[in-house]
């Protein structure tokens, strides 16, 4: 096993284990940790594919932003009722079948589109800074400003909630 494939295996294992945990676990904080592992695995996948900027943005925005916000929500909202918080689910065969069916369809249809390319080897990311500091910066910055505006507005909503 080369270092390359070890990295890929690690990323895939993290993603799958995290997703399975996040879907099946009951205790809400463990669900959050599993989701964190999944998000981290996605970042690892990006890094493996050579998209290091995307990988770090993923950690920054998802692990540091969305996940923290979710844990926040859990901590402030759930402790009040005193019981051990659990996420309720209705495990029926139907939804599992639907989900599996959609996934299988997705795979079968995309397989042809994907062609016979195996997972590509990671490439160097040296041209990245110049590419990102180039004309694409505009679109990129716009998206960033958008996110910031959304986060500020989130604070406004939460403040409104407190006053009530």
């Amino acid at each position, binding site marked *: 096993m080369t270092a390359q494939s070890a990295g890929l295996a690690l990323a895939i294992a993290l993603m799958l284990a995290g997703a399975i945990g996040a879907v099946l676990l009951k205790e809400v904080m463990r669900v959050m940790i599993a989701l964190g592992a999944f998000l981290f695995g996605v970042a690892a996948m990006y890094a493996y594919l050579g998209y290091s900027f995307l990988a770090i943005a993923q950690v920054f925005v998802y692990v540091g932003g969305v996940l923290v916000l979710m844990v926040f929500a859990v901590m402030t909202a759930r402790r009040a009722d005193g019981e051990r918080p659990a996420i309720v689910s209705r495990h029926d065969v139907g939804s599992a079948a639907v989900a599996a069916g959609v996934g299988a369809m997705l795979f079968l249809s995309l397989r042809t589109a994907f062609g016979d390319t195996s997972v590509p080897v990671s490439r160097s990311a040296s*041209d990245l800074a110049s590419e990102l500091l180039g004309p*694409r910066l505009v679109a990129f910055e716009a998206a960033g400003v958008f996110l910031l505006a959304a986060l500020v507005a989130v604070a406004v909503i939460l403040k409104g909630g407190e006053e009530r």
Partner: protein
Amino acid sequence: MIALAVACALFSLGLYAVLSRRDIIGVLVGVEIMLGAGSVLLASLGAASGASSGSVQAIGVMVLLLAAAEAAVGLSLLLSLYRTSGRSRVDELSEVSG
């Protein structure tokens, strides 16, 4: 191909959570996984097609930021909903009143 299979499996898992969870947080976790599967698909597709690394990452970051902004807004709504009503079940959202 491995990446595609993994992305599809992740999508299924997320969809299962959306269908089976009764709690809004659980549903939201499911949607996050579905979107994550989409992003993995995007990245591996970009890598397989040999597109320039910068453009794939620019698109990826745009999708990522948008999804995150939406998730943040949704969570803040959810959080203030908790505070005002103390309820969080999806079923309670689907009641038809009036």
